């Protein structure tokens, strides 16, 4: 079945990437790889944030306003409460109201 095949490819591809470094550097970790292990996580989270905005059209109405307002709310909620749960639920609720009612 087509779906089962695609899901198997996604599962195996993901597992391959997670296991590969453990298999390659089984004996010892070179200092350069250890350095990358330290600085990459914040860089990759930054990458993921941009990734989420990749399909937003800023040149046509509503000019990405729902996304920008909701993302700004997440930052403010997080600085205020420091709780991922509050930031995620709050930001998502604001976004849903914006796209369903305000910019509908």
């Amino acid at each position, binding site marked *: 079945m087509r779906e089962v095949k695609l899901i198997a490819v996604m599962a195996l591809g993901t597992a391959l990437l997670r296991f590969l470094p453990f298999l390659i550097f089984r004996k010892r970790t070179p200092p350069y790889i250890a350095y*990358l292990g330290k600085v*990459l*996580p914040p860089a990759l989270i*930054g990458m993921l944030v941009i990734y989420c905005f990749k*399909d937003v059209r800023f040149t046509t109405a509503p000019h990405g306003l729902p996304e920008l307002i909701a993302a700004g709310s997440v930052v403010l909620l997080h600085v205020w409460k420091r709780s991922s749960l509050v*930031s995620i639920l709050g930001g998502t609720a604001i976004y849903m109201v914006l796209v369903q009612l305000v910019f509908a």
Partner: protein
Amino acid sequence: MKNEVTRQAFKTSIPVMAGYIVLGMGFGLLLHDAGYGAGWALLMAVTIYAGTMQYVGVSLLAGAASVLTTALTTLMVQARHLFYSISMIERYKGAGKYKPYMIFGLTDETYSLLSDDNLPVDPKDAHRYRFLVTLFNHSYWIIGCVTGNLLGEVLPFSTRGLEFSMTALFVASLTEQWITMRDHIPALTGLFSTLLCLLVFGPDNFLIPALLLITLILTLLRSREEARA
């Protein structure tokens, strides 16, 4: 004591519980709207166990993507996991029978919980503790994905916009790292390299160039960054 390790692992996993149930439900609903039922949600949650990939996977399934497209997309979307694994090589040493599952379950969120070296348990129980945190997180994810899919049948309100929970998760993580870390160069490198690559290569082909550019810049900054640490 074994129960104490379990209790501490559960405590550590609580912040991820709500997030995974919400995000998992978002995925389950999307999958339902694409025409796939709870069995599919269960299969994907158990075997793929990766939030971003499963969200992308819905459009691959619905858009009748080829095996090759699916394989390449998976490698691109998930390439960052290479780097999560790289930074856990030392920590997971000696985990024995727990290790394969710990590596399989190394999601963004599990990584962020387990890359913290202040363990709440005796060091000799470290691997069992990390294994259990991974297992708790995976269960929340499975519960969320399946529940969300089932709710798609009965939900009385429109779920349009719910997919923003993924963006919100990453924005919240970035904000948290920004507050905790003194050195903002890696985060800024990630943001601006990716933005540049998105503008240059367009929305379909920018992830690999972005990963390469980020790695290149951080490599060039190595002596400077290590002096700061």
